[in-house]
C-alpha cells in the first residue's frame, strides 16, 4: 500500500509539473503580454518599461522558475484588471465554488448510485425505466435551460427559493441541483452497467449459495466491486464541476472562481487565468490521487501485491 501510494504521488507530481509549464506557457501563447498591459495607445517606451517592470525581458526559463517559486509560496502576482493580488482574489471566491462542487457531487451520488443499483437489480422494471428516463433527461437538457426552468418555477411561479446570490445555503439549493443533475447520468449508467456485470459473476452465485440475505449479496458482495470504476468517474466529475461551473455560477450570480475565470479570460487578465488554471489543475490532481487511494482501499488486488 505504501509503495502504491508513493508511486501515485510521483505520478501526481509529474503531472503537476507539466501543468505548471503549460499554464506558464499560456501567457506567451496569447500574444505579447506587455502590449496587452500597456494598452493599445501606448508607445514603444511605455511597453519597454512594462517589460522591464514585469521581467518579460529576462530569459523564459528564468521567468518560469521565478513564477513557480512565487506560486509555491502562494504568490501569483497582481491581477492586471483588479490591481490586487491574484491569490486574494481567488481565495475570496474559492469557497463558493468548492461548496457548490461538493454539494453537487454529493447530490449526484445520492441520486445516482441507489438508482443505478436498483436498476441493475431489477432490469427492465419500472425503476429501471425511471432511472433511464432521469439519465436521458440529464444528458439531453442543457444546464442553462434547466437552471432557467428551476428559477421560473421555484422563484417566480412559487417563490420558494432565491433566484440569485450566494449569501445563505438556501441560495445554493438550485445551483446544486442543476450542477449535480449534470453529473448524474454518467455515474448512474456506470453504476448500473457495473452492477449488471458483477451480479452475473460467479462469486455472487457463491454468496447466494451460502444463503446470504439478498441485501448482503447486493451491497456487500456486488456493490463494492461495481463501485470501483464509479469512484474514478466521480472524482473526474467533481474536478470538472469545480472548473466548469461557469454557466451555473453565471446564471445564479454566484461569484465563484468559475465566474472569475470567465471574466478574466474576457479581460486578458493573464495572471489570474494562469493562477486559476494551475490551482484547479492541482485540485484535479489531488482528487485523482484520492480516488486512486480510495480504489486501492476498495480493491485489494491493487493494494496487496
Amino acid at each position, binding site marked *: 500500500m505504501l509503495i502504491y501510494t508513493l508511486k501515485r504521488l510521483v505520478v501526481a507530481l509529474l503531472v503537476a509539473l507539466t501543468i505548471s509549464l503549460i499554464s506558464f506557457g499560456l501567457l506567451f501563447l496569447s500574444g505579447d503580454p506587455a502590449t496587452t498591459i500597456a494598452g493599445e495607445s501606448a508607445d514603444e517606451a511605455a511597453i519597454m518599461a512594462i517589460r522591464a517592470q514585469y521581467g518579460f525581458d529576462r530569459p523564459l526559463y528564468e521567468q518560469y522558475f521565478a513564477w513557480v517559486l512565487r506560486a509555491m509560496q502562494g504568490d501569483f502576482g497582481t491581477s492586471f484588471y483588479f490591481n490586487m493580488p491574484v491569490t486574494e482574489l481567488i481565495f475570496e471566491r474559492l469557497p463558493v465554488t468548492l461548496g457548490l462542487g461538493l454539494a453537487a457531487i454529493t447530490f449526484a451520488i445520492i441520486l445516482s448510485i441507489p438508482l443505478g443499483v436498483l436498476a441493475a437489480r431489477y432490469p427492465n422494471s419500472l425503476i429501471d425505466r425511471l432511472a433511464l428516463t432521469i439519465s436521458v433527461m440529464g444528458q439531453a437538457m442543457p444546464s442553462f435551460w434547466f437552471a432557467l426552468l428551476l428559477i421560473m418555477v421555484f422563484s417566480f411561479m412559487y417563490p420558494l427559493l432565491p433566484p440569485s446570490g450566494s449569501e445563505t445555503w438556501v441560495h445554493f439549493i438550485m445551483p446544486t441541483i442543476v450542477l449535480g443533475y449534470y453529473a448524474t447520468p454518467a455515474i448512474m449508467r456506470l453504476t448500473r452497467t457495473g452492477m449488471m456485470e458483477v451480479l452475473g459473476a460467479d462469486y455472487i452465485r457463491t*454468496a447466494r449459495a451460502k444463503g446470504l440475505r439478498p441485501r448482503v449479496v447486493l451491497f456487500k*458482495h456486488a456493490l463494492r466491486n461495481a463501485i470501483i470504476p464509479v469512484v474514478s468517474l466521480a472524482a473526474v466529475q467533481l474536478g470538472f464541476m469545480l472548473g466548469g461551473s461557469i454557466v451555473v455560477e453565471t446564471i445564479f450570480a454566484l461569484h465563484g472562481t468559475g465566474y472569475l475565470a470567465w471574466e478574466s479570460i474576457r479581460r486578458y487578465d493573464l495572471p489570474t487565468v494562469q493562477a486559476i488554471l494551475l490551482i484547479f489543475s492541482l485540485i484535479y490532481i489531488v482528487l485523482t490521487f484520492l480516488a486512486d487511494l480510495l480504489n486501492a482501499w476498495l480493491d485489494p488486488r491493487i493494494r496487496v501485491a
Partner: protein
Amino acid sequence: MAALLEVENLRVDIPLGAGDLHAVRGISFHVDRGETLCIVGESGCGKSLTSLSLMGLLPPKAVRQADKLFFDGIDLTQASQGKMSDIRGNRMAMIFQEPMTSLNPAYTIGNQLEEALLRHQKVSGKEARERAIHLLEKVGITGAASRLGQYPHQLSGGLRQRVMIAMALMCGPELILADEPTTALDVTIQAQILHLMIELQKEFGMGMILITHDLGIVARVADRVAVMYAGQIVESGTVNEVFDNPMHPYTQGLLRCIPVPGKTRRGEPLGSIPGIVPSLIGKIEGCAFANRCRYTFQDCLTTDVPLAETSPGRGYRCLLSDQQCLENAKEVA
C-alpha cells in the same frame, strides 16, 4: 429411514424465443446420508442445472417443476425464498466448477468463510474464526490462521478450491452438491481434491452429489451412478453394476472412450460417439440417443423409451432386450 434427498420427475425449462428449452426432462433420484451419487454426462446434458435447481439458484428465467422434491422431509417445491436461503449454505452446500472466479476478490478468505457461519448459526466472531481455521486445516491448507487475512488473488486455483470446500463445510451441511469441482484444476491437484472430498464426506457422514463428466472419477468415488443424456437419466445403478454391465448404448459409448493402459494400442484411434446431441428445444421424438446409437432400429425413432427398472435403483432407458444389452456390455468390458 427416508432418503436425505428425494427427487421425482424434476424438470427445468428455459423459455426462449423459439420455444421452451427443456434442459432437464423429468429426472428422479435419491441420495442417502453418507452416500455419494455421481451424475455423469457430457456438457449441456442438464447436470449443472439439476444441481442449481436443487439449491434454488437457477437463473431467473428458468422454471423448475417437480412431482417430488424433498430434502430431509422438507418440500423444497413449497419452500419460500427465505426458507430456501436458510437451508442453502447451512444444511445443503455447493461447490462450484470455477475456483478462480467463485471467491469475491474484494474480501479476505477469512471474511468469506466466517460470514457463512455467522449468517446461519448463533456464534461469536471468535468461534467463526476458529471454525474457519479448523476447516482450512482439514482441507490441507498450511498456515491456516495466516491465510484468513489473505485475498483470493493471492491463492492458486487448487488452494482456492480447497477454500471453497472449507466454505461449503462451515455450517456442517448434510448434503454437498459438487459441480465438477476438479475440472478447472490440473491432474495432480484433481486427485488430491477428490481424495479430500471423499475423506471429509465419510468423516462427516454427508450425502454428496458429485457432478462430473470424468468416468475415472466416478469409478473411484461413487456409490451410485446416474448417467444423464439430453436432460434425462438414461442409466442408473451402483457403481459396480454400471461399470461391470453398462446396459445403455450411451454408457457403453462413454466407457469405450476411455483409453485403457495396456489394452489400447499406441496409435489406435480413441473411442468416440459420432454425431451431436439433439436440440433440447421442444419435444424429442423417440429415444433422444437414437441419432447417435449404433443399435438404432425403427421403433427407436418413434417410441418414447421409459426408464425400465430391473431392480430397485438399477435401470436404463433402452428398447433393446436385456439380453441384447448384456451382450453389448460384454463387448465393452
